[in-house]
């Protein structure tokens, strides 16, 4: 029997090779392997493509997802557990987009939702119906764009050796487990929590002994922390960089970077547990403040000097600015769900929905998060 190509151009999937995936996950891998992953991520900026690109060992990805979202039995982040509900959701997508057919009868891509028409998702892709899959994507992109860059945390990793992806993911899992078991009655500084984690756990990604714990906690571990609490930032904003970020003009940032060790960082004043990292105010559960909110009505507010205004910063929610505007948080996906992106790439978006369905959609994720307390 002979199988012909039928004129179909195969996609460029140089990363889709079991030996290659084994090397980047467990080592040893070369600089060329890193470049393959970097190029694959850059090419997969188009979201359906990104959903199909899974560099992290699927077993670890599955475990990682379960560790961070233990209650999400029915929609884990990776489609290895493809369920009837996912099947039904896929069916609904197809039905909803039946009318999106080109004049030649050829089915066109699903406009905004970015899932190709008629293609059944394979059980090895990131689950497009679960926002929780972003933690896996962020972990992969953190490794490729940052950890494997020579200019990232070289005081921790050294100038040449870099940890494999599975080691970084396993350390993230251990960090989540450690933080979830911490007593949460008294919030502590995140720096102290990370120091405890570093001293009481053997990290797979940091091989050498005698590293500067504060440098590790304020840089690499803090960046990992932000990923496991599902608050990934643009990768150029990460704290672990030595002096430069691949692909961007570093010059404007240089003066700040030179003195950054003398400036208090988020780890030095944010607490865990607490919502400061997300921009949430402290819980007022014990606060006995009482009153009726009769005047908090948009119509009434607009009849006076104040106006309502949307903001993308959660910490500004329900606050008044200098221009007499009451700010309301609205999850602009361009900011709330951005991923660690290569320089020049478009900001990240949810695989399916590019805009939130309900206000606060992006923080509803934390109701199932193991640290969301």
């Amino acid at each position, binding site marked *: 029997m002979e199988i012909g190509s039928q004129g179909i151009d195969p996609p460029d999937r140089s990363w889709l090779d079991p030996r290659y995936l084994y090397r980047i996950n467990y080592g040893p891998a070369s600089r060329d392997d890193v470049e393959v992953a970097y190029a694959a991520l850059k090419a997969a900026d188009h979201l359906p493509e990104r959903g199909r690109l899974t560099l992290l060992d699927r077993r670890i990805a599955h475990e990682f997802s379960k560790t961070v979202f233990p209650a999400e039995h029915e929609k884990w982040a990776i489609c290895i557990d493809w369920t009837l509900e*996912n099947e039904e959701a896929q069916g609904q997508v197809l039905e909803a987009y039946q009318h999106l057919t080109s004049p030649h009868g050829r089915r066109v891509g699903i406009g905004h939702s970015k899932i190709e028409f008629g293609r059944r998702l394979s059980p090895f892709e990131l689950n497009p119906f679960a926002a929780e899959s972003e933690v896996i994507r962020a972990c992969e992109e953190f490794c490729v764009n940052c950890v494997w860059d020579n200019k990232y945390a070289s005081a921790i990793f050294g100038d040449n050796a870099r940890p494999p992806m599975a080691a970084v993911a396993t350390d993230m899992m251990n960090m989540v487990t450690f933080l979830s078991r911490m007593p949460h009655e008294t919030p502590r500084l995140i720096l102290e929590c990370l120091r405890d984690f570093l001293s009481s756990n053997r990290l797979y990604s940091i091989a050498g002994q005698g590293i500067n714990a504060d440098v590790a906690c304020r840089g690499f571990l803090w960046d990992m922390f932000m990923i496991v609490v599902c608050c990934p930032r643009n990768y150029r904003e990460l704290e672990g960089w030595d002096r430069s970020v691949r692909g961007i003009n570093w010059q404007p940032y240089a003066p700040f970077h030179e003195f950054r060790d003398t400036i208090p960082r988020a780890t030095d004043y944010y607490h865990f547990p607490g919502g400061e990292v997300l921009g949430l*105010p402290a*819980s007022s559960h014990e606060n006995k403040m009482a009153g009726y909110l009769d005047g908090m009505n948009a119509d009434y507010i607009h009849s006076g*000097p104040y106006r309502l205004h949307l903001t993308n910063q959660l910490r500004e929610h329900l606050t008044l600015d200098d221009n007499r505007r009451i700010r*309301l948080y609205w999850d602009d996906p361009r900011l709330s769900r951005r991923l660690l992106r290569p320089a020049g790439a478009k900001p990240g978006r949810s695989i*399916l929905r590019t805009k939130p369905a309900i206000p606060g959609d992006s923080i509803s994720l934390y109701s199932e998060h193991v640290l969301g307390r």
Partner: protein
Amino acid sequence: MDSYSVLFSRSLGSEAVARKLFEQQNMRVDFVISFNFIKDSVRAPTPADEDKIRIMKWYDPGVRGEGPLLGHFEYYRPHLALLMKQMSEWKPQRRGDLLQVGYNDRFTYYSTIFGVSIAVLGLAGVISTIIGTVVAWLALNK
């Protein structure tokens, strides 16, 4: 978010404000009785959903059964209390603010406006009387 329900869902005027606010973001607003979170979490969005934001109505006897109180808000209770205080204590700070109605004691504002209107009308009457008298006097002396 409950703050959206409180702000936008309790009057038709507030719903109109929400629609106008989100129109700038190319979003449509839909006011719903309650969210079906479980169903929505697995349901695939349709093209119509893509540009729609849903706000839950506050007055839903099955869900809440009472008006909005500060106690309903665990995290934003101090924010809301401070906003209400800022609203009730607002005072004109610039010349342009003199005609701006505040949030507190609107009766006094409207009474003042009414009084000023009457005074202006009275003043206009006095001025027109003076002018009329002067014109009549000039005509008499011709």
